[in-house]
């Protein structure tokens, strides 16, 4: 088990407002960590710091440079970032994930293109190679963006609220794919929906300005307390599930 990145007593802020405070956190090469916490608690900010989009105002983040640098991280952002009506094809978008290895000069080799078609087939998108994005369903779109995140074969994959645009028919496939990918790369998955991710991740990081790391994947009352508000876990369907009792305010 090798260490990929380590964050030490790190704080991050926007316009002087502290969003993350005194975070200590490390990611190892076979981790599958669910990052949970309330909206506005700093989950996406944590991803931004790891991606190098936001400089910490205190503390440090260091990468194991043999395995990982800021440019070999796969990233699946929340769906709203790309312009779905922009004239790009599925292949174009998946190929754009190779840019994490290419920097500025941007020729795509035949090998890159072959890789892209493999990824597309592997994600069940065959036949859609030349389709524009606005002709795809939500679930197909998500797979295209997942393809973009993994084509560069990153050692760390960051997922920001992938549950937001999962269609239910693909949901199980999607998490099965992640499980396969986890044998090759560490995964950090942000979600505000504990119910969905609890059966897939190996451990938790609860983020609400501070960060509490929980090595096991069971949700405990203490973890829910990190929210500082009542949490309801409601779900329906054929899958067996657990509902925890509500906890008192502290």
């Amino acid at each position, binding site marked *: 088990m090798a260490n990929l990145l380590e964050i030490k007593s790190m704080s991050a802020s926007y316009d002087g407002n502290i969003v993350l405070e005194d975070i200590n956190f490390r990611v190892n090469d076979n981790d599958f960590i669910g990052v949970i916490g309330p909206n506005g608690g700093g989950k996406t900010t944590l991803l931004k710091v790891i991606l190098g989009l936001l400089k910490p105002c205190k503390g440090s983040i260091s990468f194991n440079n043999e395995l990982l640098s800021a440019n070999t991280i796969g990233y699946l952002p929340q769906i709203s970032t790309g312009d779905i009506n922009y004239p790009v094809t599925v292949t174009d978008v998946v190929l754009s994930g190779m840019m994490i290895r290419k920097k*500025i000069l941007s020729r*795509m080799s035949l090998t890159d293109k072959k890789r892209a078609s493999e990824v597309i087939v592997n994600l069940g998108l065959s036949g859609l190679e*030349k389709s524009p994005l606005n002709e795809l369903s939500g679930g197909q779109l998500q797979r295209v963006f997942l393809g973009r995140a993994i084509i560069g074969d990153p050692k760390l994959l960051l997922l920001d609220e992938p549950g937001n645009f999962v269609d239910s028919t693909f949901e199980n496939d999607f998490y099965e794919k992640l499980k396969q990918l986890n044998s090759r790369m560490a995964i950090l998955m942000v979600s505000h929906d504990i119910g969905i991710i609890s059966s897939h991740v190996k451990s938790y990081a609860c983020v609400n300005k501070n960060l509490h790391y929980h090595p096991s994947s069971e949700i405990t009352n203490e973890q829910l307390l990190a929210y500082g508000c009542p949490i309801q876990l409601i779900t329906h369907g054929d899958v067996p599930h657990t509902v925890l009792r509500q906890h008192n305010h502290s």
Partner: protein
Amino acid sequence: MGGSIFQYDFIIKGLLGAVFASITAGLAGSYIVSRKMVFLSGGITHASFGGIGIGYFFGFNPVVGAAVFGIMSAMGVEYLSVKQKIREDSAIGILWAFGMAVGIIFIYLTPGYSPNLMSYLFGSILTVTNADIIALGIMSVILIIYFSAFYRTILYISFDESFARTYSHYVNTFKYITTALVALTIVLNIRMAGIVLVLSLLTIPPNIAMIFTKVYSRIIVWSVISGFIGTAAGYTISFFAGIPTGATIIFTLVVLWVAVKVFYMLFKRIRN
């Protein structure tokens, strides 16, 4: 004799002008249309009139003044909206009118009558100089090299800027360079189509292409082709009918756009 040499020169100039205008406008136009920057480009176009007025007043080439004003207004919009938190469309609206105002004031202050003023507003092939054609030719070469060298970089930054920032530190650099090239393209085409009409030279061809293709590289190629058809046909019609060039070109392009749209709809209906 003199008449035929004049005519020959006129045809060559018109043909080269049409080729270079459609290449530059096709490349820059595909970029602004797919990035939804048409209003910003309108602002750049009109703000550049300020540079034309200052050029007249101080007696240097108005196109140089227009280029400086065009690029500065593009950067000014970026500065006002990002750093000063003014809404981008408001910033564009302000600089748009400010440039026009500066232009009108300086042209008014310039002694004597400015016979070329109308040609800057509405375009006229008669006033296009050889230097203008050469400048457009150089611009075509620069744009072809730039877009083929950085095709994917430009495509991916345009499609998803925030994702591009996760792997590149050069996102802003590329945005500024491309916007500056768009501004220069607009200014160099002002002589052909005029300030009031030049924007359509950039926006109509990509919209013709986007009727039947959604692939960026094909949009560029078909923009150049449809731009050339519209420009060359418009130019010829304006020559024989004796009507203003810029207006005829835009009119022809719109007719082409409607024709392609109707033809494509019929084609789809027959195929189904």
